[in-house]
């Protein structure tokens, strides 16, 4: 599903944000990405979503080499990936419902399908009752859940989350992790970047550790080795 082969990212500033990263994730696998601030977690997720391009090496998603995806095809490529951001990235002048429905509108779903799927996704994150609210009236945790609903509404096979629980209390963080867990159970590949080592360890999934752009730890390999 995800395959990094000697992948490196050097920003125009000359800084090597990622250096020769190798790992592989199977469909339906869940992994946490951790490391100090500036280690390259966000950069790694950006390479997967083609927000940035690899400088060297290869990133293969669903059998597709990202360096071969032309700019014009990037939107279609991204429709298969649900992305959840630390800062939610919601549209504040639209209702919760409209925010969640947006990916379906973009991909040209018929209106009835949009209504059905949007409500199902909102129900999934427990916000069906707030569908007519504006994001500004929601709490941080609720906004994050709107972001999750939007990320899954288009049935992506891959879910990326960049510090989704960054500023939430432990209980809320735990709840959100449970939502991810549910998606993994139905076959979605989930990758979550997080600082919260305590919680990550409790959840017991694979952990990838980055340090200064290099992958210095991978619990999956540790298990095998």
């Amino acid at each position, binding site marked *: 599903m995800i395959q990094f082969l000697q992948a490196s990212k050097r920003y125009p500033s000359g800084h090597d944000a990622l250096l020769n990263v190798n790992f592989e994730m199977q469909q339906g696998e869940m992994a946490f990405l951790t490391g100090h601030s500036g280690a390259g977690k966000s950069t790694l997720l950006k390479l997967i979503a083609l927000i940035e391009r690899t400088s060297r090496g290869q990133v293969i998603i669903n059998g597709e080499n990202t360096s071969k995806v032309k700019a014009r095809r990037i*939107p279609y490529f991204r429709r298969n990936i649900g992305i959840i951001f630390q800062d939610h990235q919601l549209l504040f002048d639209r209702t919760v419902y409209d925010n969640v429905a*947006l990916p379906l509108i973009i991909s040209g779903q018929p209106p009835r399908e949009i209504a059905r799927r949007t409500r199902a996704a909102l129900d*999934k994150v427990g916000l069906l009752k707030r569908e007519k609210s504006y994001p500004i009236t929601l709490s941080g945790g609720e906004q994050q859940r709107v972001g999750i609903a939007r990320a899954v509404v288009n049935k992506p096979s891959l879910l990326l989350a960049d510090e989704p629980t960054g500023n939430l209390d432990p209980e809320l963080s735990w*709840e959100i992790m449970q939502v991810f867990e549910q998606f993994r159970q139905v076959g979605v590949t989930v990758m979550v970047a997080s600082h919260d080592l305590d919680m990550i360890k409790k959840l017991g999934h694979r952990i990838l550790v980055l340090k200064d752009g290099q992958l210095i730890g991978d619990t999956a390999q540790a298990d095998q080795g």
Partner: protein
Amino acid sequence: MKPSADQLFEDVTSRDKPGIATSIRTYFLRHAQVFFYSLGQLWRTPFAMLMTAAVIGIALALPTGMHVLLSNAQQLSGGWEGAAKISLYLKQKTTEAQAKKLANKIHKLDEVAEVEYISSEKGLEEFKQRTGYDTALKALDDNPIPATLVVTPDLRFNNAEQLEALAKQLGKYKQVDLVQLDSEWVQRLFAIMDIVSQGIVILGIMLSIGVLLVVGNTIRLAIQNRRDEIVIVKLIGGTDAFIRRPFLYTGFWYGFIGGFIAIVLVFLSLYLMSGPVEDLAGLYQSQFALHKMDFGTIITILVLSIGLGLSGSWIAVGRHLREIEPR
């Protein structure tokens, strides 16, 4: 959030791809929604929107109004051209018989519709009546007015060059002393109107470019204001076409509303002018009244201004959308 997860997720995921008919219908429905949504967005800031639209309207009303006035002038003077006549002043010693013979000859020419013979006596009579120089003329021994043939050209030969050519040709008869083309000043007027018409076209082109820039700049600001939204839409798989669409429709609405304002302004100006113009025409015993814009002009203005709105936004979107990428 009690997980009956599988079931709910199944609900989220399962569904066959929509059929082609549904896809097409959805596509048009979406276009219609964006079409009216962008109008709704504009109405949320009616003052800003009307200011921009008014700039477009005034810029387009100026050449349009001038064009309408010019075509009024052309219509009015068109009647004068039909009245173009060529006067042939005959040499003093020409007899009446010779003159009538020449008149017959000229009448047979293709270019000529009518020839009228005016003897020198009759000419003198008319001159007296017109001017009242009765006593002054009595002081003269001889009748100073020559016999005249007034030639009315056939309507098919009624443009400036052909009249000129005909006048020249008629001047070659040996009895003819002097040829006078009565319509020379009309021709000059037409030449001036041609220049004015060219001027209006040039003005129209320059103001159209102005409109293009105004719309382009307005859309550029709109794009910058929605930068965050564009980034988000790109992140969740929105194509350039999808992102472009609302801005193009916004340009359409600016063009449409601007064109509408232009039409209203021209109508209003013509209405305000029609009173004085009719008063003036009355002084000349003329029935002339200002013609309003015809339907063709109205449609042309609307099409043109919508075209300018669309192109202006197209240029802005092409230049600025590419710069906005998620980081």
